[in-house]
Structures are given as C-alpha cells and as structure tokens.
C-alpha cells in the first residue's frame, strides 16, 4: 500500500486555533494520540509493488541489503500524575523512501502491521519491559528482525491529535524525546509525561495530511487520491501551508 502525504507547520501559539478550525471542518472532536516510537534497523520487507523488490534472479547476491528504520508504534494513555501506560494498540510501521521527481504530494510505500500483545501479561508488568513484551508478541519473522543485532534501538514520543476528513487522516503533533538521565530508554519503564523533553524547543507542531491507497498503479484510485489531497490543501490555504517536502528529509534508510 502507498501513503500520500502533505506536511505543514504550525507555531505553538496558533495550535489551539488550528485545532478549532480542523474540528469545524471535519465535524468531529479531536482524538488525542500519544505514541511511543521504537526504531530498529532491518531490511525492507518484501511488499508487492514496492520500489525495491529484492532481486529474484540472484537471490544469493552478496551485496548487503539496504537496511531501513522501522518503527514499532505503541499507543499510550496518560494517567493523572502517573507514569504513562501502554495500551494494546501496537503497530509495526514501515515507510519507504518517497518517490523521486516533481510530484504534487509525497508518495511512499507504507506497511502497517498490527501486533497483538498477548493477554498473558499485563502491559504494566514491571519485570518485563515494553520492548520485551513486543518482541514476545511479534510473529516469527518479525521477531527475528527485532532480536537480530538491532542493538541500536532508539525511541521517541509523538504527542498530538487526529482528525478524519472523508478519506484523509489529519494529524497535528510534535516530537518529544526521552528524559535525560535514562540509560537505555527503549528497554526501561515508561516515564511520566512531564519528564519528556521537546525535540524542537520552539514548541512548533507538525501537521500531516495523509491518505493510504491500495494500488498505486491504478490511475483512477491514484488520481482521485491526489485530487482529494490537493483539494484539502486548497481548503487550508491561509490557515496551514501544506506542501511536499524534500524526499531526503523523510529518508528512512538506516545509515
């Protein structure tokens, strides 16, 4: 599946106004989303129609496969003055490099797989870290990827709101980093919300308008999706400037 994106920025001072505008346009209340992203390195999955389908003629080719940054996204809930709690929505996300060329929107291959955390252990079980639970719950190929030498696990948090407008998902969020004095953040307990630090000190928010389409090669679907996104961009003209970004800024290849 492919994801079509447009991105924009909103300063911290106008965030509330933009939230109200979105609420008016979409006719729904904002849904609060707090997520923890755990990033690990693995080769690209073999997705049909992907930009990089592995070489079938020469499967034993010795060139090292390009590794990408995959995200495991864990939904979190915020307790009143307590540590964050993980909910049971865990998704394994893969995003490929965006298509080159002068495109009206950012187009990239996307793959989201929902992981079912087994009910055998509560997510608040302190003896097992979140990462361990995820690894335990992952299906076999994913488990191999997660445990094979992916020692460099990074993590960050994403705090924001989500709206749905016809087929477009609108997210307005900002990135937060782990608290400072945690040695291995990906493996340790979840901190409290107040302890998280902003990545961008100005407190600006990112707006992302995205759509997922099933088949990139069918022009009816693709053109309809691009048209809808561009119409939304036109609708938001004057309020939020939505645009494509340089594909290398969204590069998920691991270096």
């Amino acid at each position: 599946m492919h994801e079509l994106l447009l991105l924009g920025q909103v300063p911290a001072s106008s965030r509330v106004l933009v939230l109200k505008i979105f609420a008016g346009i979409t006719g729904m209340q904002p849904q609060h989303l707090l997520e923890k992203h755990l990033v690990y390195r693995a080769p690209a999955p073999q997705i049909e129609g992907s930009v990089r389908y592995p070489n079938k003629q020469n499967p034993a080719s010795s060139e090292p496969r390009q590794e990408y940054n995959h995200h495991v996204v864990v939904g979190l809930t915020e307790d009143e003055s307590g540590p964050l709690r993980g909910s049971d929505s865990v998704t394994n996300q893969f995003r490929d490099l965006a298509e080159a060329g002068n495109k009206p929107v950012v187009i990239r291959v996307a793959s989201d797989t929902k992981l079912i955390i087994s009910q055998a252990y509560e997510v608040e079980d302190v003896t097992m870290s979140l990462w361990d639970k995820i690894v335990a719950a992952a299906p076999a190929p994913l488990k191999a990827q997660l445990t094979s030498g992916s020692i460099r696990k990074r993590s960050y948090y994403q705090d924001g709101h989500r709206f749905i407008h016809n087929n477009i998902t609108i997210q307005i969020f900002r990135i937060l980093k782990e608290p400072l004095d945690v040695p291995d953040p990906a493996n340790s307990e979840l901190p409290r919300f107040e302890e998280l630090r902003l990545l961008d000190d100005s407190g600006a928010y990112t707006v992302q308008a995205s759509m997922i389409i099933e088949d990139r090669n069918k022009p009816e679907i693709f053109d309809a999706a691009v048209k809808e996104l561009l119409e939304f961009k036109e609708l938001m003209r004057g309020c939020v400037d939505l645009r494509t970004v340089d594909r290398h800024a969204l590069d998920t290849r691991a270096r």
Partner: protein
Amino acid sequence: MASLTFRPWTRDAPEAGSLKDVLSRVAADRGHFRELTEAALQEEIAGEGALESSDSDEDDENDDREDSQASAKPATRDDLFKARAEMLQHIDTANNEVMIALDFVSLLLTKDAPEKGKTTISAEIKKQIPLGSLGYDMWQNMPVNKAREAQDALLATNVRMETLQRSADSLLVAADRLESNVRKETQYWDQILSITANGWNVCKLPGQQHRLGVTYGFNESAPEFSRRGIAALNASPDGGILLERGIGSKPKAMRVVLRQGGLAVGRSRVPTVADESETMLEARIRHARNSLFDEELYHELLRESRGQASLGVSTTGDGIVFRSTSAESPQSTEVLLELVGLYDIQDDLDVKLEQDTLAQVIALVARTLLSQAHREKVKKRSGVPPPLSERRDDRPTLPILRPVMAFLLQHTAMKLVNQYTSSIGSLLAAAHIDHEDQLAAFDLSKAAEIHGVEDLAGILMQRWTSESVLSFYGTKITIRLETTLAQSFGTLYTLIGTNGRVSKFTECEELRTSCDAAIASELALYLQRKAGQAWKCNVREALITKHDSKDGKEDRIWVTVDSQAGLLALNSPTKKISWGSQSSSSNTFHDAWLELLG
C-alpha cells in the same frame, strides 16, 4: 595695370539693436549684470587701453570678493548656492508675474489697438483666449445707497437663514433615521440573541454576505437533507426577524396508521400546528426541524422498503405498508407509514382509537432508530479510513423498518401463542385437569441495564425471543418464539416436548397442530402410567392399547385434542367423552377414563 581694390559697399551701421539684443549681448559679455555699475563702466571707458587688464582685474576683484565673502562667513559655499537658488526663484517668480501682467495688458490692448497688442501677447494666451475679448469701461463710483444696502444685507441674512434652516432640517431627518435604524438593529439583535440562547445555531450564510441564517438540520443526514437544514433570517421593515420564505410553512410529519380489515384501529400522534400569526420565530424553526427530520425518516424508510420487498413490504400511493403476520387473516394488522402535511389532516385528529398507543410507540421507535443511525455514521467516519480502493460503497440503507417489523411480528406471534395457550388451558380446565401456564412476554431482563438511548437502540436491533410454558400432570411443554429479520420473514416457533424433542415451525398453524398432538400424547402417556403395565401406549398417535387375553381383541382408547375446534376428547371405539366448546361433560378426565374402561 592699375590695381583694383574692391571696397565693400558701405553699409548702414548695424542697427543699434533693440533693447533686447543689447541686453543679451551685455549679458553674454559681462555676465548677468553682476558687478556692473555706472562708475565701473566709466572707469573702463577711461582706462580703455587697460580694458583687458581691467577685465581680468574685474575678474580678480570678483574672485577676491568671492574669496573674501567665502572667508568672511564659514560654510558660505552652501549658503551661497542656497542664496543663488533663492534669488533665481525670486527672479523666476518676478518674471512670471511680469509676463502675466504683460499678457493682461496686451489682451486689453488687442481690443482697442490690435496690432500693438498682438506683438506683445504670448503664444499660449493667443491660443486659449480669443483676441479682443477683454475690454474695459470706466465707471463712476456709485453713490452710497443706504436703503439698498440695508435691503441687500437683509436679503443676504434671509438667504443664509434659509440655507441654515434647510441644513438643520436635513440633520434632524438624519437623526430620526439613525434613531429608527438603531431601534431596528437593537430589536433584530435581541431576537438573534434569544434564538442563540435557546440553543439554535446562528451562522453566516454561505455565499451571501451580510445575512445570517439559522441551522436546524442534522449534519449526519443524507446530503439532500442536510443541505436544506439552513434558513436565512431576514430583517423585516419594522426590525423583526422573518424566516426565509417557505421554511416551516408546509410542515410535514410521519404518521403510523394501524388497520385491521380495512378499518383504522390506531393512529400515531402528529404535532398540532398553532395559529400562524401567533407562532414565534423559534416555534417556526422547531416546526421546520421536525418536518425535515420526519421527511428524512420517510425517505430512509422508502429506501429500505425497496430492498425489503421480499419480506412483504410494499409501497402504495399513500405510503409504506406491511403486515404483521405472513398470512392473510382477519387478525393480521396492516401497518401504514405515511408522510402527511400537518395542515391536511386537522379534521380527524380528535378521534381516539384503541391501538393509538401502539401506533405512537412505533412512530417513536422509528424516530429513535434514525437518530441512532446518525450516531453510528459519526462513529464510522471518526475512525481511520480504510485504504482507498476501487470499491465504491453505496449509501447503506439504515435499519429502521426492519427492527419495527421484527417487533410487530414478535408481538403478533406472542398474541397468537397466548391465545392458543389460554384455549388449551380452558379445555384442560373443563376436563378438570390441573395445569399451569406461563404466557409468553417480551424478555425485558436487560431493561435494568439501559443507561441511555444507545442502549435502548441496541436492544431494538437484537432478535426478539420469548417463551411460553404449559405444564400439567408433571409434564412440561415449552414453546419458544424468536423473530429476527436477518434470515427469513416471520417468527420461528420452537416446540420442546417433555422428552426433549425439538421441532421448529414457521407457521402458527403447524405449531398448533403439533402442540395439540403433543398434548394428546402426554395425556395418553399419563393414562398409561395410571392404568398399569397391561396397557401399552403409542405415543405418536396418543393411543393406549391393552391386549385383552379374554377376547383376543385389544382395547383401544385414544385422546384427541383439537384447539381449533376447541375440543378435548377421550375416545374408545364405542364411546366418546369430550369437553370443550361444543359439548362438555361434567366428568373429570380421570372419571371419564374409568367410564371408558368399565
């Protein structure tokens, strides 16, 4: 040869030149009359020989004076330039004035002495003003005429007063208009505020500036209805608010009519329309909203009925019709859902019919289900949308008619089963058989858990079940009813006999016959148990036989139960004892049995 010398002809001395030429020559020669004085010139003439040196002297003197001037005042250079510029400006102005005066005089002259005037007049004036058009006369000074002057002064005062009066009047008119505008605006905004205070949403009309409108529609309706849900608020000339023309003027409402055998036995209530002039603005808006809601409800019902034609729903010219049982019988009730204009049906509103409550309930349930469908729509579109694919989802039909039909079918089936049970009960009572029955009723065990409309709607969507139990002589027969419109039309009857045998029927008649047979079998079994080992029971035919060794014949006694005819009978080949509607024996069942035996 004598040499010839040609001498040029003597010519007249060149003209002295007009003053203009002289002046220009002097200016070119000496600079513009800067240091030219009579004394200096005379000096020059005296010192002719030293003309050049005096020139240079003059220049030197000029320079000296310049320098002295320069040294006398510091930064004089800029001042000098400024002074020079100022002087030039003054000269320019003076030149201008002089030329204008010249033009004036020449224009004047052109009347009386054209040639003289023409030579001195400038070209532009000649172009713009025809020559000879300005003349002059000499007048004597008029003597002072006091009276006339006083009159003039009076006239002037009067004229001034008149104009002042007129401006005062126009100011007063403006003030009046302003006051009335303010009054109208205050009234208008007061009314708008009262509308918003009552919860209506007042907003800007799309596409029309300077006009407000009130929204009374529902966001989650089908597009053709949500578009109609906004009405403009126009200001009337006296400052009040008028709703846009046509809104709320022909209100409609949905009405449910129950009919049995062609006659109406129940009608749901429609809102009454008060006298138009008394209706407040808000009442009209409310009427408009109710009418829109009912119209949408009717529209959705129509859409649904088209898909449910196989279940016996039909649309006639009036509205949507369906029967409460699958069979045509005089018992069956016909339900008609129609959209009526409130003004068309005012006459027959007073008549109260027996099943009005049921009709009103049906109408309420339909409206509740529509609101629930709206809520479901919001929930559905608040979730992350699925990836775009070629499948185009048509607008799903909202389940409004189906739950109502299911409810009615269950209700009718329950009535039938209860009728049957009570008839059997009376038959058994006539035969003095102790029995107990539990009538079927709606299973309302979850009623305590209802916290809101959503729970209620959830219950409406589920399948309906009820149970009826008939027990006598220690045996129990259970009849279960279940209605769901998911699979098939009609109620599913399940008969559970004592031996656990389960049979399912879709028609009440089949249930009846089967149940009759089951009851007869049970009675036969009971008799057999009472009678003893010698008797054998054929359960299926409710027959007990005893092989009589004496005659070699067998005695047969069988039980018949016929609820249709209302008959319970104990038969032997020779005799028949029956209880029921036709003939009733006063024996108990037991006594009858003994009678037949002996």
